[in-house]
Each structure stands twice: as structure tokens, then as C-alpha cells.
């Protein structure tokens, strides 16, 4: 079972940095696990906590939110808002007993294709031993 299990990650990627970073990883033919479902959002600050909860509810094993480095936001300060809000989300998820590894956030710029692949590799590596996420998942 543990051998076959492939975690599904939902990644909310900021259009201006992380999404471009993942593109760069793609066009540079870097290898990384295919477990990610990328969702482009206009800014990491536009990621509502509901997106995260909903992703878990609809069966994601891990959720990644990735945005621009502090100071580099296309909208000047969206990522600062995201940082604050998603920190609370993370604390809340841990408080109700979800494994802390399942939700993470990263700063990936448009030039950091390598970092993006590394983030995904690490995420998949951490999720594999946890097995499928069933806590928040809606019964099919």
C-alpha cells in the first residue's frame, strides 16, 4: 500500500512568481514528481482560507500556497496579507489535529524553477509516510 500511494497536492500558485517559476521548471525540463495539481491565482493574498479547507475537503492530501518573496509582490503587499492569514490557517489546522506537514507555504520567484522542484520533492517526500488524508475529506 505504502509503495503505491501517491499523494495528491493542490498548489495555489501566484500568477506573477510561483506559477512562472513552475513554468520555468517545466520549460527547463527539470524533473519533479507529478503529484501536483497547480491552480493559478492572481496573488497569494487572494487565497481564501476556504480554498485550503475546501481542497482538503475535496480530497487533497496536501495543500501548497506559493507566492512572491516579501517585497516582490506584484500588488505591493498581497503576500504580506497571505503570510498573516495563512499562518492562522496553519495554526488552526494543527489545532484540530491535522498533521502539520499537510499544509505549507513557500516563496518561489519566477526565476526559481529549481527551488520549485525542490519544494515539491520535499512535500511529496513528507506526505508519503503520512498516507492519504482522511480527516477533512468528504466521504465519497
Amino acid at each position, binding site marked *: 500500500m505504502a509503495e503505491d500511494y501517491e499523494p495528491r497536492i493542490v498548489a495555489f500558485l501566484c500568477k506573477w512568481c510561483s506559477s512562472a517559476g513552475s513554468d520555468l521548471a517545466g520549460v527547463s525540463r527539470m524533473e519533479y514528481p507529478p503529484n501536483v495539481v497547480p491552480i493559478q491565482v492572481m496573488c497569494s493574498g487572494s487565497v481564501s482560507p476556504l480554498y485550503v479547507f*475546501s481542497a482538503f*475537503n475535496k480530497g487533497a492530501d496536501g495543500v501548497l500556497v506559493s507566492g512572491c518573496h516579501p517585497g516582490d509582490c506584484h500588488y505591493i503587499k498581497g503576500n504580506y496579507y497571505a503570510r498573516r492569514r495563512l499562518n492562522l490557517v496553519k495554526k488552526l489546522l494543527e489545532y*484540530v489535529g491535522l498533521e502539520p506537514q499537510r499544509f505549507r507555504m*513557500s516563496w518561489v520567484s519566477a526565476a526559481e524553477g529549481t527551488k520549485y522542484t525542490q519544494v515539491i520533492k520535499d512535500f511529496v517526500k513528507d506526505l508519503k509516510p503520512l498516507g492519504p488524508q482522511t480527516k477533512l475529506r468528504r466521504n465519497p
Partner: protein
Amino acid sequence: MAKIEDLKEEAKKLLREGKVKYIIGYGAGTNGWPAAPLFIKKPEDVDKLVWDPTCVHNLVRFLVDEKRRKSRQKQPDKRPVGIIVKGCDSRAIVVLLQEKFIDRNDVYILGVSCEKTGVVDDAKMSKKLAGKKAKTVQVDAQDRFVITTEDGKVEVPAEELLAARCLECKANFPVIYDVLSGEKTKRPLDKPFGSLEKMESLSAGERWSFWREQLDKCIRCYACRSACPMCYCDECVVDSINLAVTADTTADEKARRTRWIQRSAESSENLVYHLVRAIHLAGRCIDCGECERACPLDIPLRLLNKKLEKEAKELFGYEVGFDAALPALVSCFRDEDPQDFIR
């Protein structure tokens, strides 16, 4: 507990001069206890006002209803509404002012200080009385609760019966008011987040089984939402039936609406509902405990909100409900906000 004779005088004066539309306060409950919300329109009714440790409700919720009612009237009465508030309720007003939901001129605040006590907890009291029915609850000179039952009087130290939120109250006097009754005395407070200690000492697995068991009970009656003074959105994201429908909303549009969560009382959905509610109340919840009191299944909802209040304090140094001029918790940031969890 403060005496509210001076407030009654003031209330009479306000009503007689027509300075307020009406006054929201506490009156005797139909069953003796607890006190029930009372709306006073005539000066001669002011004497029906009561103030004792059974005034558990947060009346600020009625300001939200008042605003709705006003927005539907063609020529609304623009006079303010008088309202009697405790310390916690006054902080709810501060948050509503902070969010510009109400205007300071819309409300005339009659503050009462809880002084060294607070309000009683229903569950704790019925346990204490072991089946007997309380007729009245008063506070004596030593700040002990005196409960009158059919068999006579029972004296209980305040700490035994106080609601959990009162034991963790940061300011048991109104922080904003037009008239204040009682003194601004602070009760010594050694554990501002005492109720969380037990939860936080548990492992992740134990916390999960606790919350699953608790939230499995939820029947999605939305009483917590209805009782909450902060849940004032006209459209609530968690249930799709109250989304705005106008004359030109097509069936197609209605069908296409994103249903983030369904209205089913299914355990994962219950969890998502309560998580969403907790996040929406982060930095807004003033810990009046109404959600928990209104819950017909006794889900300890306060623990979710209190946790986020604690995190807001520890991570961002944010304390809710003291300054209406501050921006809200999630609509501001500092450069030095922690980001050790971000890669």
C-alpha cells in the same frame, strides 16, 4: 456587580426626551432566570430593567438586526438605539465600529461594569443546584453569588459558577460607553487562556479525536451563527440558500454558484464549516461565548475562537476590541510578521 439605578434614570431621561429610539437591556426572564433581552420603548417601562449575574446575553446582536431593519425602511428613524453592555459586549461594539458596520452615532451605550464578578454559567449552576430551580441570582458584598431556590438561599464563591469566559476576561468593564455604571475594577487574571491549556497539552491525534467527536454532533442549525454579533454577512459562504437572489438572477446563475460546502450535517463538512467560521472570526471574536451558549449540542466552540485569539496575540501582538481606530487583524501586516513556517 454594579447597581444600575443611575442607568435607569439616564434611560428614563433619554426616552422621555426622545433622544433614543428604544433601549435594549435585560429584563426578568419568564422562568425567573436567566434574564431575557428586553426592548424598552416607553419611559415608564424602564423599571423593568434588571442587572444581575444572569444577564448572559450579548445584546449587540440586536444592533445588527436593527441595522438590517433600518436598511429596509424607506424613511428610517435616524435616532440612536440605547443599549446596555457588559465589558465583553462593549468590545463587540468596538469591533463593529472598527469594521464600520455601525456608526458611533447609531448607538447610545449604557455601560455596566461586571466589577469583580461576571455572569453565571448555566451548566455549572444546574450542577451545583442538583436539580433545584434557581429563582434569582444576586451578588453579595463579598462578591459571592447568592442563589435563591425554592428551599432557601445558597451561597457560592463566584469562581465556582462564573462562565469560563468571565474567568478569562481581560477587561470586565466596558471599554466604550456614553454612561458608565460601576467601577472599572480589574479582576486578577493569572491565566488569560486557561481553557486552552488542556487542549494544547494533548497530542495531535487526541486533539483530532476530540474535535471529530465534538463536531460530529453538529446538526448545522446555525444557532452559533445567528447568536454571533460578528456574523453579520447578508450572504454566508457556508450555506448557499441565503445567497442574494434578485429579480434578474437567472436559474443558470443560481445553478452555477460555487457551493463551497454543502448544508449536510456530515462530519467533514461540519469540520469545514466550523473552521471557516473560526477563521472568519479570527481577530474579531471578542469571546462573549454566545455561540457556545446557543449551541443545542454543547459543542465547545469557544475553544476554536479562543485559540485564534491566542495566536493573534502571540504571533501578531493583536488584541481585539480595545481600539476602534486600529485596522482589523487580517487587513494589516507588519514587516516582521513571523514566517518561519514558509520555505
